[in-house]
């Protein structure tokens, strides 16, 4: 079943045309990754899907229904976005942040379970439970953002560079968590600079260049594409770890 359909999406910021007709599809249960250079428009795409940016043109459908242009409605529908820059509630404690993740949910028991699961995945967060999250280190904040996304319990998770600024060991953890998200039945649209790792866990991939999709296909095939190798995977096989 098709989870997300994006059709001929155009977005611009004042003078800059960040997306120029992007079309893509994400099927239920898939991990789809979008790779592209800095400024290719990846974050713009995710922000448009979650309603933070108003497209100039184009349509999007989620589970067959047209997406309404309000972030809060979109979250309700089941899309959950972990943005670049994390956007945690800096003045709230770690625990309050996680609880707010479940704002729209009413199933208390399940919420408690999920909270335990998050702490299980990130023991660091349990240690820092009562700390104001603004004073967490960069990496800790990323963990919190991921944990909070789990708490919203959406069906489609948009992840914007989740490994940004994470220590190598944690980068691994993050990718493990993404796989775990999938095992929980979630569908994932992943934007990553760490193309090597992203292509490694994804089912399918799109390559975005200057606001346009230039390639798409099975993740394995894309990873083998010589042009992609050259531009995004570096000469040797990337980051340590």
């Amino acid at each position, binding site marked *: 079943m098709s989870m997300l359909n994006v059709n001929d999406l155009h977005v611009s910021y004042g003078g800059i045309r960040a997306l120029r007709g992007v079309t893509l599809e994400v099927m239920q249960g898939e991990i789809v990754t979008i790779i592209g250079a800095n400024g290719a428009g990846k974050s713009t795409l995710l922000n448009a899907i*979650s309603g*933070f940016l108003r497209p100039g043109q184009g349509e999007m459908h989620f589970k067959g229904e047209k997406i309404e242009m309000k972030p809060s409605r979109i979250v*309700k529908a089941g899309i959950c976005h972990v943005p670049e820059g994390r956007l945690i509630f800096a003045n709230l404690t770690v625990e309050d942040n996680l609880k707010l993740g479940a704002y729209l949910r009413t199933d208390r028991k399940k919420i408690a379970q999920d909270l335990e699961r998050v702490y299980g995945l990130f023991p660091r967060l349990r240690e820092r439970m009562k700390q104001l999250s603004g004073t967490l280190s960069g990496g800790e904040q990323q963990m919190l953002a991921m944990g909070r996304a789990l708490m919203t319990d959406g069906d489609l998770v948009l992840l914007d560079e989740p490994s940004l600024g994470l220590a190598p060991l944690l980068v691994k953890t993050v990718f493990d968590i993404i796989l775990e998200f999938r095992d929980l039945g979630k569908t994932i649209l992943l934007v990553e600079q760490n193309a090597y790792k992203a292509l490694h866990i994804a089912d399918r991939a799109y390559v975005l260049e200057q606001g346009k999709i230039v390639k798409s296909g099975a993740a394995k095939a894309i990873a083998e594409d010589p042009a992609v190798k050259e531009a995004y995977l570096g000469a040797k096989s990337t980051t340590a770890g």
Partner: protein
Amino acid sequence: MNLFLQQLVNGLSIGSIYALMAVGYSLVYSIMNFSNFAHGSVIMLGAYFGYYAMTLLGLPFLGGAVAAALGSAGVAIILERLAYKPLRDRRAPFLYFIITAMGASMFIDNSVIATIGPTPKMYPNVFGQGPISIGHIDIGRVDLAMFIISAVALVALILFIDHTKLGKAIQATAYNMKASALMGISPSFVIILVFGIGGGLAGIAGILYGMKYQVFPQIGAITLKSFIAAVFGGLGSLPGALLGALLLGILETFVSGYLSSQYRDLIAFTLLIAMLVIRPSGIMGKNAEDKA
């Protein structure tokens, strides 16, 4: 001793009015991060709504209070939609909000002067004549009513903010608007709600203020004091605003009572500066080290 107690009562009575004003103002501040200098005008309109509801429509006090609360809430929301939302959409810096608020305040106050006129008006007396005497202390009836109503309204608000889901949504939005949208909270809704609540409190403050004193177009000027109270208490903190308001009311009364009222404001403002210098985030405000 009697004199002291009488002054304490006088102070609490002023303080409770400051509190109603300061809490509404602080609430909006906590979400929008700017001082809504039009709050005073909303209070003033509340006083007029209440006045006309009670004199023209002949409503009883409660009806007047509801009319004032609803009317002011409506005005506050309209103000938000027409004046602040466009700025918010542009992510304008807080300076612009403050100036717009001042423009709005000028607009509202002078519209009232131009249409209704500058002459003060007196509420009908609904609480009966003469003070209530306890020992040697005289308490005005309006003051008593005001103290009770302020207390009820503020307790209700604090319970609402701390113990309901909507309250949590308000807090979250106050901390980070975009992040709360990611949690499924609609910021526009929360903002409207907050302006509605702030406006409602302003309306109640207006009608009480009007009953205690008079109704006139410059009522809003008094909100300056409630801003100071909010700063004393710590901007954005509701209990802080409450505490700051009561303290300011009592302080002012004692300065007037034991020194001279002509030094009252001077001392209030000097203390304000001293407070900001010693403890910039007020009594209850948080002061975390900036994380680089």
